[in-house]
């Protein structure tokens, strides 16, 4: 089959007819497009990558086959990548080409729609975090945390250079943080957890004049709700360190807002709203106090007025950004996760505050209930701490890798933390299969 897009030779997305191409070449006085290229012979390439052209149907069929090669497991996985059911209307609306195929809003007069959507996203995060400033997004929770640490390095108010983070921090976050601070004056140190949340005494010992940044998570990577945030915040404040809280918008719908426990910055994974499971793709939440406005990394949308004095939105405070400030920019970030932020805002507005709180409350109740069911099994302890949990919790068994393998054979994926510890994450997407999971645990641990 041919047709202009379906089988024309060359790029199916270059709309030139042969006649048009000829007329254009003629107008330029050249015989061939190749004549327009000014590439010295010694670096010229012959175009032979060895990649065959395929029609779109073949590509789709091939990739369907490729993805079908993934095993079909019911996932009880979390540890930083969470997904909840995303209503179909979010897919439909966010797929509108006006959103999906638009660029950054450099011409606000014809991009008011996206600008307003991002302003609304910022506002939703302001409400959830309690902090007055939220940017348009970072890449993910890890890069948001790393940028928050770098922010502390830029502040005159913090004289220190130590970044204090939990020792159990997820590797992806810790690794990214390490990479980002490598070019700064900061060094990363850790504080221990007791009973799966922060060891307050240890933090008190660790925080000092040299501390620039203290980071605490709630829920933690194992799902424990951190009970001592305010105390950690006080410790940070005492030494003029920036206090940064990590969370996500679903948890923040129910939990104490970080501003009220003294957070200067909130980071986290906002893709818990709006994003389906996507192999780790995320949406970096970044919010902070007014004081640090001029040091915020990434884009900000502000309200303004147009020539008719009507409300209009625009990217603002761009002098912080790389395309203006170059090496003195607050970050090198340019492309961010705007479209994911759009989806998160849609999802939040669909749920509304009642829906968000209900969803969050289910994350508490379902985790507790599944943990209790597992704990009732011989040879299984859940949770392994005395905390309240959000979505997930740790599970003690004799042979964790063996149990995980047995569960996989029965169609379930869980985290294996060490030889005796598993982790299970319960959400609206898998809770119906929780009884089956418990039954599988019973079989495997018997």
């Amino acid at each position, binding site marked *: 089959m041919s047709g202009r897009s379906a089988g024309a*030779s*060359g790029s*199916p*997305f*270059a709309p030139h007819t042969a006649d*048009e191409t000829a007329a254009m*070449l003629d107008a330029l006085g050249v015989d061939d497009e190749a004549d327009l*290229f000014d590439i010295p012979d010694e670096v010229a*390439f012959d175009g032979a*990558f060895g*990649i065959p052209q*395929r029609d779109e149907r073949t*590509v789709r069929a091939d990739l*369907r086959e*490729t*993805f*079908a090669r*993934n095993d079909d497991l019911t996932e009880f996985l979390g540890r930083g990548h969470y997904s909840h059911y995303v*209503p179909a209307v979010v*897919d*439909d609306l966010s*797929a509108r080409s006006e*959103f999906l195929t*638009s660029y*950054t809003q450099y011409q606000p*007069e*014809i991009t008011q*729609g996206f600008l307003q959507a991002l302003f609304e996203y*910022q506002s*939703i995060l302001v409400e959830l975090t309690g902090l007055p400033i939220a940017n348009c*997004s970072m*890449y993910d929770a890890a*890069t948001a945390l790393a940028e928050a640490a770098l922010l502390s390095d830029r502040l005159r108010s913090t004289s220190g250079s130590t970044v204090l983070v939990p020792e159990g921090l997820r590797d*992806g976050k810790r*690794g*990214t943080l390490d990479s*980002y601070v490598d070019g700064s004056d900061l060094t990363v140190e850790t504080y221990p957890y007791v009973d799966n949340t922060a060891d307050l005494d240890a933090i008190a010992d660790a925080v000092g004049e040299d501390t620039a940044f203290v980071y605490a998570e709630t829920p933690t990577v194992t799902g424990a*709700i951190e009970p001592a945030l305010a105390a950690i915040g006080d410790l940070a404040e005492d030494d003029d360190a920036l206090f940064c809280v990590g969370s996500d918008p679903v948890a923040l719908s*129910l*939990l104490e807002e970080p501003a009220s426990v003294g957070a200067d910055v909130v980071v986290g994974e906002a893709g818990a709203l709006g994003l389906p499971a996507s192999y780790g*793709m995320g949406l970096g939440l970044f919010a902070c106090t007014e004081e640090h406005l001029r040091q915020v990394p990434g884009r900000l949308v*502000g309200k*303004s*007025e147009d*020539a008719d004095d009507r409300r*209009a939105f625009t990217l*603002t*405070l761009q002098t912080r950004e790389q*395309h203006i400030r170059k*090496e*003195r*920019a607050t970050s*090198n970030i340019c*492309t961010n996760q705007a*479209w994911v932020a759009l989806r998160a805002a849609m999802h939040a*507005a669909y749920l*509304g*505050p009642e829906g968000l*709180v209900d969803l969050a409350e289910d994350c508490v109740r379902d985790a507790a209930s599944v943990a209790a069911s597992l704990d009732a099994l011989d040879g299984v302890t859940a949770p392994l701490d005395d905390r*309240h949990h959000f979505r997930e919790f740790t599970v003690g068994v004799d042979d964790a890798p063996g149990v995980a393998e047995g569960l996989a054979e029965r169609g379930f994926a869980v985290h294996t933390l060490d030889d005796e510890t598993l982790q299970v994450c319960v959400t609206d997407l898998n809770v119906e299969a929780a009884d089956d999971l418990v039954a599988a645990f019973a079989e495997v641990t018997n």
Partner: protein
Amino acid sequence: RNEPLLSEKDSTTVDPGAGSALPDDLTRDSLELPGLSEPELARHYTRLSQMNWSVEAGPYPLGSCTMKYNPSFADAVAADPNAAVHPDRDPETVQGNLELLHGLQEYLATIGGMDAVTLQPPAGAAGEFTGIAVAKAYHEHHGTDKSEVIIPASAHGTNFATAAMAGYDVVELPSGEDGRVDVAALEAAVSEDTAALMLTNPNTVGLFERNITEIAEVVHDAGGLLYYDGANLNALLGRARPGDMGFDIMHYNVHKTFATPHGGGGPGAGPVGVVEELAPFLPRPRVREVNAASGGDADGADASTAADGGALAGHDHGTADEAGGAAYELFDPEQSIGKVHGFSGNWLVLIRAYAYIRRLGDEGLLDASAKATLNANYLASLLDLEVPYGPFHHEFAATAGERDAADVAKGMLDYGVHPPTTKWPEMVPEAMLTEPTEVENKRSLEDLANAFNEAFADTDEELHAAPSKTASRRVDQTSAARNPRLSWHALEAARGASENASGE
């Protein structure tokens, strides 16, 4: 007419703590947010969408942003529910994902003439950061202390910001008279402190750096590395490869070159390719075929097979799969710089890039650069504005001369097109950096040229009054920055304050 804010459509306050299974001290007291029914939500966002430009609305000739048409089929591929898996899955249970990632690593390696590729960086700037971090790790591993990165004045702002983030001092290289790198100036700038030269080629005014081999020699001789900014790779597809020009490191902007949607700002993806000796420093983990694990330096081996070409046509399935075992596995490069993203980058974007490359193949990739370059030159030939330098490849910087480039751009809005990038690069006064890409045809270019020429011919008065046919008229940037109102809470507070003031 304005669309009301979500918060103007509904505002509901709840007490999340009431009835919670959590103790009071862990819960918040109040949450005030909008909640819209589905019909209201659909109308809100449909209306917002109607106030937004997109590639499907018309030409989007933002120079150096390369806004190409984003094919629908790639969206359909990315929506496959089987691809929607959690990143912590045992690699043996997500062989489909690994197969795609491995295939994309190979495609990108061969397209860039590189030996090894990481797909982890979630955007072009993140790719730059990754690449410079790799360079830094390489130098440190070899015990050489480098402190500077050289960047041409006309380079993207991200290059400067990236070098600074990585802890380097920036040495800015002025443009030569012909718009290209002045080799003499480069020779003067390099030293034993030079960690890398960051370069895009063709450069920001569409000129190929003809002396690239000499440039590479200068940098390499000083012990520096050559970094390729992939922003303009679309112009070279199939015609020249950064690896063959002497570049050691490069990033790919998948939305610019492989037509992934930009989503109003993101997500993107910024894979990084490197030559063999830098492969051990790439972020962890990467993907390889299981049987490649035993072959010593797997990275180099993978990629050079790929570059042979033959492997690319048939790399669909790993061979070990037949026996039920895994065909692909994750591995950590030996001297890895670590992580640059919490997981594996922007998966939904990578899928689309892979699908696009498979769709186009050699033939399509070669034609993309042909038509992108043809279009830029044809469009430039139709303009009443002066276009310094040239002939160009994929983009050119016209100058608005006595006129304000930003004003001319606003004028263009009323002709139903998106204007080019303005006032950049600085080497061209009142620059209008224009890149039509290959997706415009002759008529569309002529319409675009007409918009340029008409706006350029308008009086200053007319331009200052423009635009008038858009959703908003000229938006006041100064007011926005001087008095930042960044949430509906801020609007509410401002309203409250003015009411108080008038009440007194």
